[in-house]
């Protein structure tokens, strides 16, 4: 708390005459409201001038405040824009908010401060219709270019039944397709140089190498990549909008499908954020079950990466081996949860069920099996001379660039930054586990791979510790807001019966407030920023997905390389399109 006060004091000293109105939030992240005209100066100060600066723009989003009953006193306008900065030096965050008025509000861009603000500002424009003055290319990013309206505004329809029936006659399809045609001029690109024509090649959205519906438009001079434009949004499903319709509890299965390879890794920050809002303490056993499941899914996710990475540089077999091993994890998950890829296993206050009898045998079997497989993959892939030739020195960036672009997870650790939210800000009892943070030095494709492979070993270590030290006790909190509510006493007294009935039918009523929780997912920092208006569903669900900023870096790390390299670079970013587009 002293730290919170001190940074606000710093700001007041630096900007006399400007009001810095602190807001208290459930997650204790210092939150200050700044007049919209001052935002850029304040952010510049926080990034460049303050002692132990906030170098990373962790998130940039907005809130439509117009329907909020329990809004903070400072939110006087129709919209709020939220900047979430992160300081690695301080291991602390700051949230800067500003209030905007009117139907077409606008604000100064910060793309000149952080290059990664580019996509975030486009997203806010797309979703809320908030303009950013000085942004070089403010256009839709997740929605189709022909879309009308801004989906995350409260007056935009949220379900299909609120709109007319969807139809796609040929003429409309032709218009839509034409709207997607790439025009180099719009991106400030030339069609030809002095003595040759550039080729504009669409890599995706229907392409075997892009791991889903990603479209990268390459500007090629022969085989050399002159420039690249990543076009995303083909996998957008309105996950944040759905968060405003679903109850707190029924939204959990949606989170699984954000990073669809991560399974319960997605549940983690979401339920943690709700538990923070509701003040629920999670019992030990539930915490360890959560950790164990998360680490199993981390291995599963990295295995998919491993196989497809090898596949992308032309190695045919590892993908089959890796998927076979992943199958063993999914079998364990199936035995525990009944589901495989999307178990939606975490609940508010715990997990859905206790571990089944004989769970330890399954986990033990996997722990005995996996290390020798990893050793084999090391020989087959990581030590392979061709793999090294294809990845060493390819798509490299420095630690400073990584922080500047909002890179987290293995991508950040590959440039020598020992940063892991499980260690730095332990959640769900990670502080009780022994594991190392693997790092590498060069920040190229090979080092990113090395880090991921080593992470699988560390995850095995954690799972082993879970197996040996699984606490006994309840698997779910008996807090009245825990979901589904504990049923034991429902037949004995009317109070618990009613609580149970309301909890199951309407869902829990989470106290009004704001909280963000960052968890270390397999791809990087996954954060859920939830705003409760004191109802049975969320007022605003912001999903800060790691793949989004990582993919944004693509043009920067692929310029000057060859067409074949872009596949290695894409593979080593390890994104999931559903995680990018949400």
């Amino acid at each position, binding site marked *: 708390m002293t730290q919170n006060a001190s940074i606000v004091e710093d700001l007041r000293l630096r900007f006399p005459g400007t009001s810095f109105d602190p807001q208290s939030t459930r997650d204790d992240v210092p939150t200050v409201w700044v007049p919209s005209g001052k935002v850029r100066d304040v952010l510049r100060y926080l990034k460049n001038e303050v002692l132990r600066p906030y170098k990373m723009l962790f998130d940039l989003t907005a809130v439509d405040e117009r329907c909020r009953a329990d809004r903070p006193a400072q939110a006087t306008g129709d919209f709020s824009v939220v900047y979430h900065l992160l300081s690695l030096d301080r291991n602390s965050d700051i949230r800067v908010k500003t209030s905007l008025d009117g139907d077409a509000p606008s604000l100064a861009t910060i793309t000149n401060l952080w290059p990664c603000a580019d996509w975030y500002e486009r997203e806010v424009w797309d979703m809320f219709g908030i303009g950013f003055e000085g942004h070089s290319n403010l256009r839709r990013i997740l929605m189709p270019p022909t879309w009308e309206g801004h989906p995350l505004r409260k007056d935009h329809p949220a379900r299909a039944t609120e709109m007319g029936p969807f139809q796609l006659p*040929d003429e409309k*399809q032709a218009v839509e*397709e*034409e709207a*997607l*045609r*790439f*025009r*180099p*001029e719009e991106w*400030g*690109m*030339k*069609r*030809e*140089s*002095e*003595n*040759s*024509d*550039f*080729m*504009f*090649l*669409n*890599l*995706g*959205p*229907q*392409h075997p190498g892009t791991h889903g519906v990603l*479209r990268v*438009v390459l*500007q090629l*001079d*022969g085989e*050399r990549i*002159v*420039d690249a434009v990543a076009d995303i949004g083909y996998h957008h499903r309105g996950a944040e909008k759905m968060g405003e319709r679903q109850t707190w509890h029924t939204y959990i299965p949606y989170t699984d499908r954000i990073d669809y390879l991560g399974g319960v890794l997605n549940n983690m920050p979401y339920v943690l954020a709700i538990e923070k809002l509701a003040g629920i303490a999670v019992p030990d056993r539930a915490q360890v079950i959560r950790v164990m499941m998360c680490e199993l899914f981390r291995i599963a996710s990295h295995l998919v990466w491993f196989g497809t990475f090898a596949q992308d540089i032309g190695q045919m077999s590892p993908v089959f081996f890796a998927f076979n091993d992943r199958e063993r994890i999914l079998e364990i998950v199936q035995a525990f949860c009944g589901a495989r890829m999307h178990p939606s296993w975490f609940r508010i206050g715990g997990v859905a069920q206790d571990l089944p009898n004989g769970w330890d045998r399954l986990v033990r079997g996997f722990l005995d099996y996996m290390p020798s497989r990893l050793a084999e993959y090391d020989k087959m892939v990581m030590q392979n001379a061709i793999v090294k030739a294809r990845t060493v*020195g390819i798509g*490299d960036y420095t630690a400073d660039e990584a922080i500047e672009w909002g890179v987290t997870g293995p991508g950040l650790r590959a440039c020598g930054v020992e940063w892991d939210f499980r260690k730095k800000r332990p959640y769900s009892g990670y502080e009780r586990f022994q594991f190392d943070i693997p790092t590498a030095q060069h920040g190229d494709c090979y080092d990113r791979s090395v880090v991921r492979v080593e992470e699988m070993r560390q995850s095995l270590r954690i799972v082993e510790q879970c197996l040996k030290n699984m606490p006994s006790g309840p698997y779910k909190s008996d807090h009245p807001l825990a979901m589904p509510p504990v049923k034991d006493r429902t037949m004995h007294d009317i109070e618990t019966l009613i609580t149970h009935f309301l909890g199951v039918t309407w869902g829990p009523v989470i106290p009004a407030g704001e909280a963000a929780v960052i968890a270390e997912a397999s791809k990087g920092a996954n954060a859920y920023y939830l705003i409760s208006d004191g109802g049975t569903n969320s007022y605003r669900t912001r999903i800060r997905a790691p793949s989004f900023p990582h993919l944004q870096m693509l*043009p*920067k*790390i692929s*310029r*000057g*390389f*060859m067409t074949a*390299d872009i596949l290695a670079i894409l593979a080593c970013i390890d994104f999931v399109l559903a995680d990018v587009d949400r």
Partner: protein
Amino acid sequence: MTPEAWYILLYSAGVLSVAVGMVVVSFVLGQRHRERATDEPYESGIATTGSARLRFSARFYLVAMLFVIFDLEAVFIFSWAVALRELGWAGYAAALVFIGVLVAALVYEWRMGALDWGVAKRKNRSDAPSEETRK
């Protein structure tokens, strides 16, 4: 004509009829359909920008030139190789000189960077868009 030539001719006729047969049979048996996007070029399922008929930078013809140089010279080596024993050491010496010239050319091209198709090292490479390619 020798019998060998007849067999080759016969074989060639067989080979040609196989190739033509494959094309013709599939033309006769194949299905037909036509829909909206049937006649569009495939480019990841999205509207294309510019055609595949481009002016390429001259350095892409370098390989062709290298080929012409080395393949022509290889032909001389072929004829020497088959007559190696007849030509004896004198021929060997001549061939050595010839190969020496070839190697000198190779070294020269190597030093000139004509054999480097790859990407520049980090320090020589810019990841900012270059001015020449932008409006």
